[in-house]
């Protein structure tokens, strides 16, 4: 999947993956996609909830060799 930017949040614990995601997405244009790599298992539900409350969309997520990957489209 095409993304404008990749954020490496691997090895970071809550709240840092979302703090960094929030910063990164602020630099994008509406409609652009941010790809996030994380290892904190709590990230999945929190990113989903955060995206929804912020008007963004979690368009895809997958797990690959213990790395959680997310694609969030800026709203």
């Amino acid at each position, binding site marked *: 999947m095409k993304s404008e930017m990749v954020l490496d949040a691997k090895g970071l614990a*809550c*709240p*840092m993956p979302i*703090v960094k995601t*929030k910063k990164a997405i602020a630099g994008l244009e509406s409609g652009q996609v941010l790809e996030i790599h994380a290892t904190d298992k709590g990230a999945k539900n*929190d990113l989903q*909830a*955060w995206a929804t409350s912020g008007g963004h969309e979690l368009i895809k997520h997958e797990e690959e060799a213990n790395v959680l990957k997310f694609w969030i489209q800026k709203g």
Partner: protein
Amino acid sequence: MSVNAMSAKEVTRKLINREPLFILDVRNADAFQDWKIEGENFEHLNVPYFDLIDGVDEILGDLPTDQDILVVCAKEGSSIFVAEMLEEAGRSVSYLANGMKGWSEHLEPISLGTLNETGADRGEVVQFVRIGKGCLSYMIISEGEAVLVDATRMTDTYLDYANERGVKITHVFDTHLHADHISGGREIAEKTGATYWLPPKDATEVTFDYAALEDGVNVKVGDTQIDVHALYSPGHTIGSTSFVVDGRYLLTGDILFIDSIGRPDLAGLAEDWVGDLRNSLYKTYRELSDELIVLPAHFMIIEELNADGSVAEKLNVLLANNHGLNIEDEEVFRKMVTENLPPQPNAYQDIRETNMGKMTPDLETQREMEVGPNRCAVR
């Protein structure tokens, strides 16, 4: 800036003492609604930490100034993050050490009193209250020996406790194959050389050796011979077994709770097992002395805790007050325990397989599997 950590044990004491506490839970709304720290005088405010990244000004007005405030998240990182911002805003708060993970894993040992009062050594039953998840396990102690029933995966807690008390664990029982939490029974038996007992009807698929826990099995604890007598009482599972300890206590496993009864569906056989459940509750238990003190393997709601934090009630009180023991019509009973059941526990199939020895998930995965409240009962 460092903020004050409050341990799960301190929160437990506040809960048992019915003290007030204001909980700012910064997990996402779904996680909060699914499972939270409940206490009679605990108040809650749920604001996800990701709504507070830019500052806490918006919630300052919602926080009381006249009582303790505890910030809670899943593991603790986000609660420290929020607590630090609140401290900077001039508010004094604590965060829950190790978050809900620590809350789920805390076991509070509560002595239920002595056994065999005529003996030289007064034996004792200790209830380990897993306050965050509602799981109850038991250590029966007499003259340097101890028997464990329904131990959780926090095996060090029991081993350390036995060490402190100077007792040797000789037998470890699981009343049934658990579906809501990972048993520590086998590991404790391996570490101490104790015998690990399981009901064979629940153990048809297990991958390890065990002693067959069947009706009439009797073990002695210590020289004064505290009796632990097994009583076949199926219904929650086909193998579910109760224990009568010293003729005074009835350990009911997941068959009978204080304010509810066991659910028969967690192995997928509600229709088959409802008759067994009925028989155990309405026949087997009624043939026992109603002066026995019931000690279940779970509590569901905080109201089931006694003033000292223990969960125990006389059988005759339950026979009078527990709704599940007072449904005369068998058909109504059948409907109640097979229809409108609460959601099944998180990952209960994986938990069953872990307890069978078919899976050996790492600690982090075990924690994830056990997330959430207890859901073994029907009310």
